[in-house]
């Protein structure tokens, strides 16, 4: 369904992605992790066609996003939902108007009340019932992410992309967002692609983890194999993030990990 084939991308003299090939398992949650600046966000943007690779193909639902026309891109994008880092909500709209925005553009046959009902339902799902009328500027960071997520799921997409869902949040709110993602995963059962540097949350929610380092894909495994991987870079990353143990066996036995 979604596959990167030999994708390379540079910005000026900076090579961000080197020959990345990655097949995203459908219906499951895949996390892409790695240190800052390794091109995780860049990879996400390639998947949704906001960036085009210098070489390689990005296949989504049979369309190569790298060479697609605007019409083709739009057809594919309607099957995606994306949560941006700061929510990327429109400040001049209320919460409800933000969430119903995709419906207004892509589901013109829905009546106003049907749209409203759908929006309220999604807002309940993300844990923010009854804030349809609230102005966007009045939201906290955590609330913006929730509303952004509600907007991402309002068209009932087949894939949801998360760009660093925990960034800029305090630890309590961050845990709450992790719990929300877990709930969504269980409720919707669709493909999730999550970019993160929060290793604990990732290990809990992801079925598969791909690790990028210095533009290369250094590992791509189901989660339980990933945490036990005998790969120096992976182990360093896990150890650095979790601070405490030595060796992958210790990691697997940490509290908070299933």
């Amino acid at each position, binding site marked *: 369904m979604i596959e990167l084939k030999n994708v390379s991308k540079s910005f000026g003299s900076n090579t961000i992605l080197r020959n990345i090939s990655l097949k995203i398992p459908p219906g499951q949650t895949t996390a892409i992790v790695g240190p800052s600046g390794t091109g995780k966000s860049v990879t996400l*943007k390639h998947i*949704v066609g906001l960036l085009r690779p210098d070489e390689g193909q990005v296949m989504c639902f049979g369309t190569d996003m790298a060479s697609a026309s605007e019409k083709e891109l739009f*057809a594919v*994008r309607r099957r995606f939902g*994306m949560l941006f*880092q700061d929510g990327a*909500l429109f400040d001049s709209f209320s919460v409800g108007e933000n969430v119903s925005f*995709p419906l207004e553009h892509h589901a013109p046959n829905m009546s106003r009340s049907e749209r409203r009902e759908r929006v309220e339902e999604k807002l309940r799902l993300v844990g923010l019932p009854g804030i349809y009328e609230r102005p966007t500027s009045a939201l906290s960071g955590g609330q913006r992410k929730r509303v952004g997520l509600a907007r991402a799921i309002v068209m009932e997409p087949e894939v949801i992309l998360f760009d660093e869902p925990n960034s800029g949040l305090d630890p309590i709110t961050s845990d709450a967002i992790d719990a929300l993602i877990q709930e969504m995963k269980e409720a919707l059962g669709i493909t999730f692609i999550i970019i993160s540097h929060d290793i604990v949350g990732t290990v809990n929610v992801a079925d598969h983890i791909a690790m990028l380092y210095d533009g290369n894909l250094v590992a791509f495994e189901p989660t339980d194999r990933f945490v036990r991987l005998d790969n120096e870079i992976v182990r360093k990353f896990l150890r650095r993030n979790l601070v405490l143990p030595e060796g992958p066996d210790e990691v697997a036995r940490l509290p908070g990990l299933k």
Partner: protein
Amino acid sequence: MTNFFAGLGRYGLWCIQFLRAVLTHGPPKGQTLHEAFRIGIKSLPILLIISAFVGTNLALQGYNAFKPLGGQRLVGMFVALAGVRELAPIIAAAMIAAKAGTEMASQIGVMRIREQVDALEVMAVNPLAFLVAPRLIGIVLMLPALTLIAIFVMMSAAYAVSVFQLGLAGHEFIQFASESIAPIDFFYGAIKAMFFGLIICTVSCYFGFHCGKGPEGVGTATNRAVVTSSVICIVLNYFVSELLYGGAL
């Protein structure tokens, strides 16, 4: 110098993209009139003030220029010609550049840096058709009206100065003024203004879309928008005037 032409080229390409987007998607219907009024109303107060004081100075300097030749009564003619043909469209355009242009550049710039433009694209909505088209239509609709208002205010202020400060005869002022302008001058003035509006809107939105990162990026984009659009309008003004008025009195 090469930078300048490269920039011009990029701007041209962007305009083509914009045209294509509008032709494919059409602008969002509901917002256009609303945008037009918003832009017009917001620009009105400063337009009034500036037109008034340009009118006053036109009268003062015109008087000074013609007095030694005994032609001070011709002030009405001078003000009418200079005001209607050249100054009113430029003033209206300058106000739009200063108020609406900077607003557009900074609004779109902020949206760009906060990934809202990306979000639009991901939600399969074309940002050019959605953000730029309504603003463009709004500006082009409002500018002729603003130009006419500028003309009226400018002439009134000039009249006031001529009669109350310089002691000229009011009816002569009006007579010379109305004799020197033809209805077509108003039409040309409106056309000029719309053309300027087109440039200001596209240039400001262009800089907004290509905004650099962070608050400095927004500041720079806004800065460049107002300077570039003003300069382009005034430079092109010569060619437009030559076309409309040159040798074809």
